[in-house]
């Protein structure tokens, strides 16, 4: 069988088109995850900025529970189409990371609300950088580094408005990432 350059080009174009369509169709739905967590975390940070400690804590726990349930529903739908062993391991890794972070809070208490907010953010960003290194996704690493840096900058320069700073930072970056994924399927 011989093939002309035109046929080779047509084949390469078909491959590129199908690969792009695959990413758009199958991975697009994962964009709901950062949107869910951007809303939950953004709401949580806002609550600590504007509500007393106890109602803010209750609201944040409620938002985390709702976020977890919503993620579970989206995850089950995605898994009907595509399933990934790394995805399951990373979810478990984040669950363990959160457990250790809250254990650290308990051991190091009393911590200020701002300290807990910063440490929680840094723990999640640490997880994102780790996941990026594991999966070789440089965007995850860059995202983790930039958000960590901005969180630390806000902690030291805007202590009175740190909750608001974090709500805007986490809300916009997570929701923006999710909307980009939904649109582009990257």
């Amino acid at each position, binding site marked *: *069988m011989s093939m002309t350059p035109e046929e080779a080009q047509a084949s390469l174009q078909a491959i590129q088109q199908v690969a792009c369509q695959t990413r758009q169709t199958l991975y697009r739905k994962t964009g709901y995850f950062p949107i869910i967590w951007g809303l939950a975390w953004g709401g949580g940070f806002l609550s600590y900025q504007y509500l007393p400690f106890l109602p803010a804590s209750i609201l944040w726990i409620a938002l985390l529970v709702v976020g977890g349930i919503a993620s579970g529903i989206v995850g089950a739908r995605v898994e009907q189409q595509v399933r990934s062993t790394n995805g399951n391991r990373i979810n478990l890794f984040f669950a363990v990371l959160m457990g250790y972070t809250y254990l650290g809070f308990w051991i190091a208490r009393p911590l200020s609300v701002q300290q807990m907010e910063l440490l929680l953010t840094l723990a999640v960003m640490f997880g994102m950088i780790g996941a990026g290194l594991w999966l070789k996704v440089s965007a995850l690493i860059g995202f983790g580094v930039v958000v960590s840096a901005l969180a630390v900058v806000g902690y030291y320069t805007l202590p009175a408005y740190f909750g608001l700073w974090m709500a805007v930072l986490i809300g916009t970056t997570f929701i923006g990432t999710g909307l980009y994924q939904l649109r582009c399927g990257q």
Partner: protein
Amino acid sequence: MGTLNELIHQPLRLRLMAVLVALQPDAQIGFTALRDLLELTDGNLGAHLRKLEEAGYVAVTKTFVARKPQTFLSATPLGRQAFAEHVAALEVILQTGKPTEQKPAGG
């Protein structure tokens, strides 16, 4: 330099392999999702998948999701390598304007 692969060269199998290779190496796609993505019938997709599975290019996993039987598919390392070689051969043809050696089906 890659060699053209007769098994992968068939247009439908080329698209099928392109989908599987586009997934993360640890990921598997459901049969129904693959069928819908490529706009094929069950029978047509099944026939092509069998050929690729026989060549060792595709791994088939049958499992239960919410108590319903489901089939998941992924490209094997051998399949990814064969596809990469086929793409490399296509690129050589495009660059040089000359066909390269062709690998027999299943090889």
